[in-house]
């Protein structure tokens, strides 16, 4: 006999209270058991929800205020994005990196991609990308037009933590020295701003998310943002980013070139793209990779 929605909701609430008790008591077996019962009850509830007509609002002994439309609808649902696209992830990353113009972290790649394109690109899916790409390159060499590869640290030429880059970029562009993260950040800002300009010029106004991303850049580059303006000005952001980049350029370029030269002479092709082997425990490695 199907229980009413109200009864099921009471049972769910009761089970949740029990579950909290088991968690407090650190009783793993009990916690697992109640969780299973909770999942079953939730399934039953969802089923009842589909089949029932109208829910009963007078369930509990408190009075709800006169509903205002804003109160019941709340903020909009997360906008739906098609999740299985026809575009493979590596191509999505390729587009995002091309737009950004410098090595970037998965979160930024995802933000940049979702700012300008309609499909979703979840950052966690990029975790294994570099590894997969390395395997693919090892097997096929330069068969593909591009690979998603690593950025290299300037001192040890190992893969820089958490960054993805394009194989079509010369090594210099993929070196991370002390000033490179900031220089690359400024490049990302310029890339974002230019993309917005491109879209505007072509008569396709950029999505809100793109403007929000630009704003994040603008707020952290000196002179890039006019506090009085409602929206950041892409041209202003570009000018400010270039101005700061000029300050760092000489020193940063020197380090990149020196490191790139070493990479070309010391590393095999696959290592130039995906980095030298990670450092082993120096206590045991007598030859050591410390510079």
């Amino acid at each position, binding site marked *: 006999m199907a229980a009413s929605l109200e009864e099921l909701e009471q049972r769910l609430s009761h089970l949740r209270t029990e579950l909290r008790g088991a968690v407090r008591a*650190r009783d793993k077996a009990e916690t697992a058991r109640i969780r299973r019962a909770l999942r079953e009850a939730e399934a039953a509830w969802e089923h009842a929800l589909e089949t029932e007509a109208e829910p009963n609002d007078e369930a509990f002994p408190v009075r709800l205020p006169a509903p205002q439309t804003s109160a019941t609808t709340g903020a909009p649902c997360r906008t739906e994005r098609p999740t299985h696209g026809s575009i493979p992830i590596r191509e999505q990353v390729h587009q995002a990196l091309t737009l950004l113009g410098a090595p970037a972290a998965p979160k930024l790649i995802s933000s940049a991609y979702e700012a300008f394109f309609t499909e979703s690109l979840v950052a966690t899916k990029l975790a294994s990308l570099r590894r997969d790409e390395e395997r693919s390159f090892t097997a096929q060499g330069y068969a593909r037009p591009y690979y998603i590869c690593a950025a290299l*640290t300037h001192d040890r030429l190992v893969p820089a*933590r958490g960054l993805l880059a394009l194989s079509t970029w010369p090594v210099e562009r993929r070196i991370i020295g*002390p000033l490179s993260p*900031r220089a*690359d950040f400024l490049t990302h800002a310029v890339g974002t701003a230019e993309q917005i300009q491109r879209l505007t010029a072509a008569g396709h106004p950029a999505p809100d998310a793109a403007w929000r991303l630009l704003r994040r*850049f603008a707020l*952290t580059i000196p002179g890039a943002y006019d506090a009085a303006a409602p929206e950041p000005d892409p041209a202003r952001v570009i000018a400010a980013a270039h101005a700061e980049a000029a300050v760092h350029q000489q020193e940063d370029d020197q380090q990149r070139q020196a490191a790139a030269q070493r990479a070309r002479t010391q590393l095999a092709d696959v290592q130039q793209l995906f*980095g030298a082997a990670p450092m082993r425990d120096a*206590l045991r490695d007598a030859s050591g990779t410390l510079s």
Partner: protein
Amino acid sequence: MPSQQSEPPDNRLARLRGPQPPQPYTARKITALTANPACARRAVLDAAGVDKALLAQRVGYEPRFGQSPFALAREQAFHGLVKWGSYAELIRLLREQLSVPVAEAHVTDLNEVGGNTALHLRERETRRLITHVASGQDVRLILDRPVLTLEVAGQTAYLEPDALTHRIGGKFHVVLIRSFAAIDGQANPTAVAEAAKQAAVYVLALHHAFETAGLPTEQISHEFLLVCPKDFSNRPYGRLIDLRQELDALQFQLSRLRRAEDLAAQLPETATLDTARSADELSSSIEALDASYTPSCLSFCEMARYCRDEADGCASPARLGSGVRNDLPGIDSTRTALDYLDGVAAPGEAEAEAAARLRAAARLRRLRQGAA
């Protein structure tokens, strides 16, 4: 890979703990160590690296602390925000609030060394980089997640402050990122005090690193940079906070921790703090250690409710708070105090004055309660 803590061999504390790995010393744990310095029980439990939450549960008093998933998410989100875009917000803050010139933007990520995340490697690399920077060979605005060490109660603690910065007034500053807000320039004083205590631990560890490397310590600032959300927005806001008092207090308390080994040595041979053993064995071992329970223990120590029941059992005045305890000088049991009140027992010379005050107060209470 070596364990995180290095301990001297044949250590009584390690034997008491048993086969369980020791609790790692974080900055928060170290500040808790110094919170109730009079308590021998806590000193030994913490020095032995015992999991106090598990121990409390094993003897029937599971602790009621826990972190809310919302608080955790908020912390992570704010940290992420400060570090987004290669520390874009932190750099902005350093420039806008602390006048760091634009040319200073050098950063190093010490979360891993050449792809390896081993703590001792990171610690060595941190020291190497600090030495380079301190000697003027190199320039760094931000060192992200450096690793420092500190000797605490005979063990080496590995500590990871959020960041170090070197371009404020040419000195090294510890940077702590916290997600409690500063509303109109004022943050919750308790939260700030706790952050300051933790920062002091990191600063001491930094001193330790400098001394190991033979560097002069004048380059270490006695202030730390606290980064927290501004008002109700999420924009990071920074404030330099003086640590001299906390540093003095911490150094003093740490110097007195050596006694944990002495206290442990006094326990009977059969004593154990191995959480896998029976509740009875554990209880009798815990009882053999003197506690110094006060109500404030409830806010930070997992064993507090156990000690509270024990304090109830022996009618300790401190369990009722410092106000009551201060009114009962020289009287070590509230039952005794009540006996004096009732006139059932006669106080000795030392307690006579306090007892007289209590009796006068009790008399007045009786007289005045009925009146309206």
